[in-house]
C-alpha cells in the first residue's frame, strides 16, 4: 500500500527536546496531541468529581452534603468542563495524533499555532476554576447560562467566565483552522477527498462546524458582558431587550456544538468496527454523505431546545420536522456499522467492546432524541431527567466511550506497547455497567416528573435516584483503573507490531510502533 522512507541520519536535530521545554515549545503534532489528551483526561476527572458531588447530594431526598448555591455551581462547572475541557480537547488531541499520520503528512500545517491553541487552554480553565474561590462563588446558572440569570442576577465571577469562554473559543477556532488547512493541503498524492479515512472526513466537517459557531458563542458572551458592565439591554426586558434572543443565539451555537462532540466519534467507531470485523466498511460514501447532511441539518434545528419558550405554531412545526429528519442520516450510519459487522470475522478486543457498546447505547440515546423532538410530548419531557438521560446517553457511552475506544485502539501505535487486555476488559465492563446503572433510571425519574437541575426532590423519585448515584460512583471510580492501564502501557508491556491489529487498514499502521517522532517526511506512495 505504501512505502515509508525513514531518514535516520537526520536524527540529531529531529528528536524531541529534553525536559519541560519539550512540552512548552513543542510544535510536533504528536507531542501536542499527547498534551491535549492528558489535559482532557485531567478535566474529565475534575468534571467527574463535580458530577459525583451532584450524585452524592441526590443520593437521598433532603439537603445533606452541599447547599443549593454550591450545587448550582457544581452542575454549571460540570457541564462546562465536560463539554469544553474533556470531550472537545480529547477529540482535538486525537486529530493531532492521527490526521497527519492518516493522510501521510509530516505534521499539522500550522505547528506554531498548534502550540498556541493548546497552551491557552490551561489558562482558560484556570480562570474558570478559580471562580470557585471568588466572592459570590462560581457561575451558577447552568452550562447553558440563560440570561437574565447569567447577567443581571449573576455572581461577579461571571466576567471571568466570559473571559474564559473567549479563550476556549480562540483555541477551538485555531485548532479548526489547523485541521482544515492540513487536510486540504497536505494529503499525500493519491488520497482524494473520497479516499480519506472517515476519521479525517469527520474532523474536516467538525472543524467547519466549529469555525461557523464558535464566533456565535463569542458574540453571545460579549453581549452578556455589555449587559453586565456597559449598561446595554440586549437580554434585559426592562430595558427593551429580549431574554429569548439569548436562547436563540446560544442554541444556534449549541446544536452544532452537540454534533461537534459526536462526529469525530462516528469516524473512530467506523475505523474500529471495520478493523475488528476484518471486513471493509459498508457504504463508505453514504457514511460521508450522512455526516455532511447531519452537519448541515444541525444549523436548522436549534430551536428544538426551546419548544417551551412560546414560539408560534409554524416555528414549532418546522423545528420538529427538521429535527426528525436528522434520524434518517443517523440511522444510515448505524445500519452501515451493523452491515459492516454482518458476515465479518469479528473479535472483541477492548476497542471493539467499546465500539459495540457505542453503537447500542448511542442508538438508545438517538431513540430518546427522536422522542424529545416530538413537540407535544416534549412539553412533558423538556427540562426533566428524561432529557438528562437522553444527552448523557449520547455523550457518555457515545462520545466518551468512543474516546476510550480510540485510546485503546491507537495506544499501541503511540507507545509501542500493547495495553493489558485483561484489565482493559475489566475497565470496559465496569464502565458499561456503571453508565447504564447511572443513566437508565434517569429515564424513569424524568418521565415520573423530576425536573433537572434540582438539588432536592419529592419522595417518589427517591429509589431510582439512589440507584443512579450508586452507578455514578461505580463509573467514576472505574476511570482510575483507566488511568492505571494507560500509565502501565506507557511504562511498558508487550511490544506492538507496526500493524498492531490483524485487520488494520490505513497509513498510520504502516509506520513502526511507537510511531517515530517524525513520520512521512517524504509522502508515501498510494496505490
Amino acid at each position, binding site marked *: 500500500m505504501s512505502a515509508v522512507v525513514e531518514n535516520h541520519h537526520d536524527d540529531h536535530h529531529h528528536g524531541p527536546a529534553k525536559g519541560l521545554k519539550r512540552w512548552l515549545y513543542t510544535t510536533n503534532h504528536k507531542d501536542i496531541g499527547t498534551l491535549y489528551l492528558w489535559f482532557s483526561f485531567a478535566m474529565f476527572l475534575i468534571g467527574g468529581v463535580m458530577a459525583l458531588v451532584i450524585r452524592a447530594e441526590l443520593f437521598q431526598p*433532603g*439537603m*445533606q452534603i452541599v447547599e*443549593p448555591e454550591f450545587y*448550582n455551581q457544581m452542575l454549571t462547572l460540570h457541564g462546562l468542563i465536560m463539554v469544553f475541557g474533556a470531550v472537545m480537547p480529547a477529540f482535538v488531541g486525537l486529530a493531532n495524533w492521527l490526521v497527519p499520520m492518516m493522510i501521510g503528512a509530516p505534521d499539522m500545517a500550522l505547528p506554531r499555532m498548534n502550540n498556541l491553541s493548546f497552551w491557552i487552554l490551561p489558562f482558560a480553565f484556570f480562570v474558570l476554576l478559580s471562580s470557585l474561590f471568588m466572592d*459570590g462563588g462560581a457561575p451558577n446558572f447552568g452550562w447553558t447560562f*440563560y440570561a*437574565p*440569570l447569567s447577567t443581571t*442576577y449573576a455572581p*461577579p465571577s461571571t466576567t471571568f467566565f466570559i473571559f474564559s469562554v473567549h479563550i476556549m473559543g480562540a483555541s477551538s477556532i485555531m485548532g479548526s483552522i489547523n485541521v482544515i488547512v492540513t487536510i486540504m493541503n497536505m494529503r499525500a498524492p493519491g488520497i482524494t477527498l473520497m479516499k480519506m479515512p472517515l476519521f479525517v472526513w469527520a474532523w474536516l466537517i467538525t472543524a467547519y462546524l466549529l469555525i461557523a459557531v464558535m464566533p456565535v458563542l463569542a458574540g453571545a458572551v460579549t453581549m452578556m458582558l455589555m449587559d453586565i458592565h456597559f449598561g446595554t439591554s440586549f437580554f434585559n*426586558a*426592562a430595558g427593551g*431587550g*429580549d*431574554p*429569548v434572543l439569548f436562547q436563540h443565539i446560544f442554541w444556534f451555537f449549541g446544536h452544532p456544538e452537540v454534533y461537534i462532540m459526536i462526529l469525530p466519534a462516528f469516524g473512530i467507531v467506523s475505523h474500529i468496527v471495520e478493523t475488528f*470485523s*476484518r471486513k*471493509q466498511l459498508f*457504504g463508505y*460514501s453514504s457514511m460521508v454523505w450522512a455526516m455532511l447532511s447531519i452537519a448541515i441539518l444541525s444549523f436548522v434545528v436549534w430551536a428544538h431546545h426551546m419548544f*417551551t*419558550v*412560546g414560539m408560534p*405554531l409554524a416555528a*414549532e*412545526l418546522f423545528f420538529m*420536522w427538521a429535527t*426528525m429528519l436528522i434520524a434518517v442520516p443517523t*440511522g*444510515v450510519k*448505524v445500519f452501515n456499522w*451493523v*452491515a*459492516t*459487522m*454482518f*458476515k*465479518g*470475522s469479528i*473479535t472483541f478486543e477492548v476497542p471493539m467492546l467499546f465500539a*459495540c457498546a457505542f453503537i*447500542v447505547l448511542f*442508538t438508545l440515546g438517538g*431513540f430518546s432524541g*427522536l422522542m424529545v423532538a*416530538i*413537540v*407535544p*410530548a416534549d*412539553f*412533558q419531557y423538556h*427540562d426533566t431527567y428524561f432529557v438528562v438521560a437522553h444527552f448523557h446517553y449520547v455523550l457518555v457511552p457515545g462520545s466518551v466511550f468512543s474516546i476510550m475506544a480510540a485510546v485503546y485502539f491507537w495506544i499501541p501505535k503511540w507507545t509501542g506497547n500493547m495495553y493489558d487486555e485483561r484489565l482493559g476488559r475489566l475497565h470496559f465492563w465496569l464502565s458499561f455497567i456503571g453508565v447504564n446503572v447511572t443513566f437508565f433510571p434517569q429515564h424513569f425519574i424524568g418521565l415520573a*416528573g423530576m425536573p433537572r*437541575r434540582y438539588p432536592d*426532590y419529592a*419522595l*417518589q423519585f427517591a429509589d*431510582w435516584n439512589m440507584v443512579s448515584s450508586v452507578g455514578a460512583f461505580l463509573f467514576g471510580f472505574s476511570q482510575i483503573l483507566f488511568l492505571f492501564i494507560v500509565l502501565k502501557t506507557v511504562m511498558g508491556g508487550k511490544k506492538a507490531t507496526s500493524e498492531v491489529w490483524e485487520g488494520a487498514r490505513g497509513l498510520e499502521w504502516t509506520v513502526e510502533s511507537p510511531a517515530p517522532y517524525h513520520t512521512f517526511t517524504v509522502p508515501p506512495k498510494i496505490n
Partner: protein
Amino acid sequence: MTNIRNLIFSSKSYAILLTLFSVATSADWNALNMTQGVTEISKEVYELHMLIFWICVVIGLLVFGVLFYSMYAHTKKKNPIPATFHESTKIELVWTIIPFLILIAMAVPASKTLQNIYDVEAGDINIQVVGYQWHWQYRYLEDDISFFSYLMTDLDEIYNKVPKGENYLQEVDEMVLVPIGKKIRFLITANDVIHSWWIPAFAIKQDAIPGFINTAWTVIDEPGVYRGKCTELCGKNHAFMPIVVKAVEQEEYDLWVSEKRSAAIALAELTEEDWTKEELIERGEALYAKNCAACHQTNGQGLPPIFPSLVGSDIVLNNKDEQIKILMEGVQGSAMASFSYLSEVEMASVITYTRQSWGNAQKGDGEIVIPKDIVEYKQSKI
C-alpha cells in the same frame, strides 16, 4: 448441609441483591412512566408518547437483533473468512426511505396534537401566572383576586431534622383553585429571571419569561389536587417553588372567589387604619421570611456581594424614602427586583420590620413606615 445453607443465605452479595430487588419491587412501576393526566390534551400527549416509544422499541429490536446475531454468529471462530461485500445502493435506498416513511407516520399525529394545543381561544377564566425568585403569583383577571403561593415544606424537613411528609416539596401555602369543565387560560410571565410553569397532569409546560406573556389552556375533567414544579433553572431555590392546582366543582369555586374578594376588600380598608409599631413589626416579620429572607437571610446579613446586608445599612437606618423607592422599583442592574405587587399594608410592615430589627432601630433614626406613606409615594408617581 447446614454449612451450605449458611453459605447461601448469609453471603453478602445475596444481601446486596436482595436490597436491589426490594428497591425494584417497592418502586411503583406505574410511576415510572409519563402520567396520562386528567385532560383531553394530556391523554393525547400520553398516547403520542407511547406510540413513539413502541415504534422505537420495534426498530431497536430489529437493528439490535441483527447486531447481536452478527456478534454471536460472525465471530472469527465461527466465520474465519469474512465476506467482502461493502456497498449496495439498493439496500442503502431501502434504509433511507423506510425510516423517512416511519417519521412521516410519527409527524402526522404529533402535528395534529400540537395544533390542538395551540388552539388558544379566550378562556372562561383567565389567570395570570407570574414567576418570582422563588414563588408564584396568581392573578384572576375577571375576579380581581391576587395572591402568592409559597412552598410550605418546613426547612427542618429539608435539612433532615424531622421526618419528611407525604407531599415533601410539593405542598404550597395557597393552592390555585379552578372549576372543572371550564376552559381555563393561563397567561404566564415572570418578574425577575426565567421560570417555567409545569403541571404534568395537564401536559402544560410554558416558560415564564420577563417581558413576555405565554399562554396555555386546559379543561380539567376530574376534581383533584394536581402538583407541578418550576422547570427552568432560576437560581438557588429553583427546586423549592412548587405549583399546586386544586380543581373543584363550580359551587365550591364560586364560594372561594367570594371569600377571596371580601378578604381583599378588608385588606384595602386596613390601609386607612392607624397602625402601631408593634402591629407593623408583627406583620412584617412573616412577610420578610417569605419575600426577603431567601436573599437577605433571616438575620438580615444577606450574602454579599450579590445580596447586601440590611444590618447597619445607611438606607435602612436613616433614609426611609430611599428604602420605599428601592422596594417599589427595584435596583436596576442588580438582583433586587421591584416588590410593588405587595399591598400598602404589607409594604409598610416589611419596611418597618427591617428598620426595627437586628439593632437597626438603636443605630438609626428608628422611624417606622405606615401604609399611608406608601400611598403617598404611589400618588407622587402619578
